[in-house]
């Protein structure tokens, strides 16, 4: 029922004398034939839906792609941190006083002269201190006096120490040996990596013999 029709219902019916009375009942107007939905609407709707799905998919792919990238970069960062750390470790060991001393020795370097001092009062220079009384080398037959277990992992330094030990342990006829070492021949030096028992140690020292202090263990 249309609005006009509703209004009609509420309007007071008035009889117009000059008009023939109208019929109260009429046949409904035939409904207009419903047109079939247009194809374009369906296509738009479906395309929109597909678009949303694809966008959603793309978004989550992008996010998870980011996660993979993040994961990969984190892995890379960890690996780099690892190599940074192992290099830093190498540097720390190489810059240890022991390595510097051994390498300097290997290069034939000697301790520098002490500083000279100028006195402002006179024209004279004052010399620094005299030399050290201790003349022993930094490495002797039993190894370094100030050992560093980490240095054994540095091939160059380890080789130098071993050479110096071998040199220090080399005996010559008439050489005074530390008490307790009876044999001159074949007194192999102990190496820091694989300590070998010198053949001389196989013989028990005579009771009361003073053992060298460094062989206390």
């Amino acid at each position, binding site marked *: 029922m249309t609005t006009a029709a509703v209004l009609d219902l509420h309007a007071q019916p008035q009889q117009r004398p000059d008009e023939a009375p109208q019929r109260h009942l009429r046949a409904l107007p035939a409904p207009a034939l419903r047109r079939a939905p247009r194809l374009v609407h369906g296509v738009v709707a479906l395309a929109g839906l597909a678009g949303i799905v694809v966008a959603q998919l793309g978004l989550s792919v992008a996010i998870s792609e980011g*996660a993979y990238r993040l994961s990969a970069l984190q892995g890379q960062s960890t690996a780099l941190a690892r190599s940074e*750390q192992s290099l830093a470790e190498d540097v720390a060991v190489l810059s*240890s006083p*022991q390595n510097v001393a051994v390498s300097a020795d290997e290069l034939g370097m000697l301790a520098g002269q*002490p500083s000279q001092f100028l006195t402002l009062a006179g024209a004279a220079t004052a010399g620094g201190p*005299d*030399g050290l009384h201790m003349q022993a080398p930094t490495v002797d037959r039993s190894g370094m006096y100030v050992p*560093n277990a980490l240095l054994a992992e540095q091939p160059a330094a380890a080789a130098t120490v071993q050479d110096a030990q071998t040199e220090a342990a080399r005996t010559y006829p008439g050489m005074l040996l530390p008490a307790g070492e009876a044999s001159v021949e074949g007194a192999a030096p102990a190496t820091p990596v694989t300590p070998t028992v010198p053949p001389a140690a196989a013989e028990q020292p005579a009771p009361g013999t003073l053992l060298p202090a460094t062989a206390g263990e």
Partner: protein
Amino acid sequence: MAAKRRNRTRTTLVALVTFALLAAFVVRLADIQVVRAQALNAEADGRRGVSQTIFGTRGPIVDAAGTVLAESVDRWDLTVSPRYTRDLQPGVDGVDELVTVGDALTRIGAITGDDPYDLQATLDAELERNPDSDYLVLSTGLTARQFEAIRDLGLPYAYLRLNPQRVYPAGSVAGNLVGFTGVTEPLAGLERSEEACLDAEDGSRTFDRGADGTPIPGSVVTTDPVDGGTVRLTIDADVQYQVQQLTAQYTAQLGARSGTTIVMRTDGSIAAVAEAPTVDPNDPTASRSQDRGSRAFTAAYEPGSIFKTFAYAAMLDLGLTTNDEELSVPWTYTAPGVRVRDAHSHPVEQWTSAGILVNSSNSGMVRLAEDMDRADYFDYLDRFGFGERTAVDFAGEQAAALRDPASLDPQTRLNVLFGQGIAATPIQVASAYQALANGGVHLPAHMIDSCTSADGEVTQPQLPEGERVVEAGTAEQTLAALENVVTDYGYDTFPIEGYRIAAKTGTAQMAYEDGSGYDPDRMMISVAGVFPVDDPQFVVVTMYDSPQTQRTSAGAIPAFHDMVNLLIRHYDVPPSTTEQPDVPLEWTADQQ
């Protein structure tokens, strides 16, 4: 009519089925969401949730210049699942050719340095013990390079577990002070006493993972670890190394049981404490247990003649004598029940007070101290820092408490004047000489400069206040007397030309461990000193236990000379600008 009834029955049936289904769903929902929620959540977390520990890094210990003495590094343990060990087939496991377990162990051995046969034996033993064993540690402490090499082997049954470890890049340099750590906890030295600063808090990271182990975005929850702080010492690693080297060389040369050297600055900060034999904290088990600590702090002994300095300073300060007081000194002192002898017999000498100190005469010291109240003397010793642990508070440090002076027997009353019947640690002796070097003011000995937390906050340890022990003049007079020990004691290895050095030698008797008297075969030779006297910068104490080749203090004199020498070289100490004052050591009747 029949159709209508049929219709109603169908409606009822549908309604019933619907409600039954609904009820079933509600029950199931309640069951899942409420009743079994916890178990299911846990199971779900277990399937895709991962929890990782993020290790906080234990703080480093560095020297005064920042040289790293101790730091934490990442190490890995290689674990395998014994029951899943199998030969890897090409095509199945992504290997080019067959890799048997033996091959794998050989390759592991080549990387870790282990014997492959040992590894095989360990593996077999574990399978023998438990065929379903899922966990076996094959090798520990792998470095980053070894870690990567093993990971690249691609063994599906191997797992590398992070296990941070402590390394000491400078090896045994200051190893006696830094200490070392065990598997889980610090065991010795500063590692132990500075635990509060160094310790780190572990964090954690939990996330859900996808099928390939990638964290699912948005599921990651991280609790950041808190790294430990940096402990900075007053130790100078270069000096420590050189002093340690010299101490070890002299210990070997003298055939001594052990050697100890302390270098302290005038402000009480410790520059070096060297011991021989000592410990390399990278490998503490290579040293005997008694060599793993610091004797300078833990081994109290009767210091002997280097202790006379303090009795002498106390007498000067009390006004009981002066450097030039003239005495006649025979080599023995006897009184009822007591007897004191000098180290060597000598005729009656006409020595001044300074001469008594320089010649280290026991009988002379006793004569000088006849009027000194021992309670006063012990007050001085207390202010010099004896009888209590130093401010360093080293792990295992001894206090060597002073006895009540009133309870001393008559002989000990005399012996305490020359360092017998009284115990002190080497660090206490050094700290007491510091007071003389610092114009009579004793400052607390310390070794910790600061603790810097991970977020950069610097805290310095609270030190007790310094305390005046003797008047500045007394300190000056004592050092002036001691300068003659270096120049006039009769050893040309002692002085360094151009530098004013004050020092006192000592040959101390060592008591038996059980306290049953002195061991005649055991001596502690030592020299303690201060230099340069015109502007004191360092205190040096060096001592050797039971030397064999030179059994008097003369053995320690070249060592003291070399220690002072290297300090002068290292710190470019300029020569003294003033002359040594003339302190008469002897007197003759003619002069009067």
